[in-house]
């Protein structure tokens, strides 16, 4: 059972454009929603995270939008840069139990 559905699986965006990755979850008990960024040959690293009591969180060019009623959340990367090219994983957790999305491979072309 895929508890966190992530789309798209791959994304190509022009430099300066907006990258948008979407995730949907099923378990309403989840209370922490992080996004991880993984560069080739490296382990994933936390990028930004949100809790369900807020609808949006922004850190620099990265924004999470959260819709509790729809059980959906998304990552927006503004002014996308070639250095943002990586695989992005959404996740949902409660306590130490974490469920990851399948990942989105983002390519930002000059």
């Amino acid at each position, binding site marked *: 059972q895929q508890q966190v559905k992530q789309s798209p699986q791959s994304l190509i965006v022009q430099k300066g454009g907006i990258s948008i990755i979407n995730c949907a979850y099923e378990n309403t008990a989840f209370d*922490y929603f992080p996004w991880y960024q993984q560069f080739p040959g*490296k*382990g*994933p*690293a936390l990028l930004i995270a949100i809790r369900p009591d807020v609808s949006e969180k922004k850190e620099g060019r990265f924004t999470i939008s959260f819709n509790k009623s729809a059980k959906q959340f998304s990552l927006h990367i503004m002014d996308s840069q070639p250095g943002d090219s990586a695989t992005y994983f959404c996740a949902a957790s409660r*306590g*130490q*139990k974490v469920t990851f999305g399948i*990942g989105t491979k983002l390519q930002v072309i000059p």
Partner: protein
Amino acid sequence: GAGVSQSPSNKVTEKGKDVELRCDPISGHTALYWYRQSLGQGLEFLIYFQGNSAPDKSGLPSDRFSAERTGGSVSTLTIQRTQQEDSAVYLCASSAQETQYFGPGTRLLVL
């Protein structure tokens, strides 16, 4: 240590051999996770430790896979009688609360 470390970084083995992969978590992190990532694929959960006990072993693919954690710190993932389909990157992560901190992974190639 500043982060999670894993060893070896690369391992090439022959089909049928046993391999041991090691994870050194961040000091003080009580939770430790093992994942498998095949080429270009997502994170496949294998096992989770809280302290030395493993409350969730549901992701282990077969009885050829086992893991242990001693002293609430170092963990080893053992794959017996390796098969070519075991070739993947094995990632370890540790956490104190919700955020997981990943190691660089061990790249396993079974010939």
